[in-house]
């Protein structure tokens, strides 16, 4: 079982970030999520970075998705980099990010 991200379906709502923290710590915070919304506002360029247990970082950007890359889209040095965060545990089998994502940008496969 793994998360599948289709970045061109993303609308930048950010719910995946906050709902991930809810699963981890029972609070809302942008600092503990395993998934990060990366934005370049002026260019309207955005996508998601997911820290996985088995594949390293899954970087889902408009050009496509790739795995194993370092640091890209970490949220910048002012925030907690994704490499310092816990990897996605798939919420124990029912990933909350995929359930709340309004565009089905994040789905479960496998």
């Amino acid at each position: 079982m793994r998360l599948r991200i289709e970045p061109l379906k993303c609308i930048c709502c950010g719910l995946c970030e906050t709902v991930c923290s809810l699963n981890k710590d029972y609070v809302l915070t942008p600092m503990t999520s395993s998934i990060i919304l990366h934005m370049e506002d002026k260019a309207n360029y955005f996508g998601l970075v997911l820290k996985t247990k088995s594949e390293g970082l899954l970087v889902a950007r408009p050009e496509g998705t790739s795995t194993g890359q370092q640091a890209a889209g970490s949220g910048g040095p002012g925030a907690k980099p994704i490499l310092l965060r816990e990897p996605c545990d798939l919420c124990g089998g029912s990933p909350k990010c995929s359930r709340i994502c309004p565009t089905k940008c994040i789905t479960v496969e496998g």
Partner: protein
Amino acid sequence: MYLRNGKIGVYDLATKELEAQELSEEDNFQSLKVAERLAVELGPDPLVLGTGVLTASFVPAACAGFVWANGGFMPILGHAGVELKFSGFDFVVIKGRGNRPGYLWIRDGMIEFVEPEGMAALDSWKRTDKVRADQGDGKIQVLSVGPWGDHSNAASQVVVNYWGGEDKVGMGAEFGKRNLAAVAFRGMGELELKEPEKHFEDAVLLMSEHVQKLGKSEGIGSYSEVAKRDDFRKLFHRAVACYGCPHPCRSYLKVSEDPGEFRLMAKEPGYLHYDIPALAKAFDMGFDAKDATLAIMKCAKAGAEPVSVLSALSSPNQGAIDALLSKPSDVKNVRAANFESSFKDVGDYRSAVGLGICPRYWAKAGYDFQAVVAYAESALDVKPL
């Protein structure tokens, strides 16, 4: 307190001193009234940043915060309202006037007034860029004014990061008279929920119902006929949502590269439209979608309210826009409602923003104050007054 920091920051721009106050639970559902009360208690003439109790929750489109000053307010949408709440404050009262132009930097329960060299020479976009570069974080949310705001022009506007549409009340002038070139916030805060799992499950259900009811978003075209022109559609790149919104009203148009280009190629290829009256006015004046976009973008950079500028235009060309932007005295302030016109009843507009939810979205999804509050009871334990 659930979904609250329980903290009000009171900052004096003149003395650069911060005082923190506790937020009363009784004030939970009355955010605009809290701002008005704080203005009276802590005045004279402060500027108040605020969030709603539902801001950052999983209630659909719970993205709103606001800026209040001198009896008027503008919503702050996108991801700005949520980021303000994560900064550690539910409200921030800004008193006094800075000695020189600078930006207020709010994060993690701290506030400071930063006065960098050359801030006044920058347009609003460059101010946002500078704050993010100086503080090393591209996700910092910036309420920025340009030269028009600096000179307290009544037809100025605050832009949120780079885009305009929220400020139809002359808030840019309120920033300018305080020497506030920008207000920036970012945070690592935590917000507790009463019943986290129930709130999540309720949200999934409601979100699903709304998505089914509203269908696929066409960006601003889902909310206004003004964006259904062919030339507008040809430049359409992508719809963009505010925090938690399943049916975005924001349309990004690319005017300097192929709208179908999704790779990161140009730094400033277009503009994010959600200012319905500005677009309508530009089209009324005879601009096509590309020139309308360029004109509204120039207004955002200058910190000028576009309906006011366009209303003073003699002919629809970019030269005339440039000339007006360099001569603010030729532009009269024209009040044009944007988000304010979401509801027929201004009371609904105030209550939605006060709760922390987007008025435009909820007007379309079906707004009922008591129903929204009842729905949010899984997140909160305080009944509205």
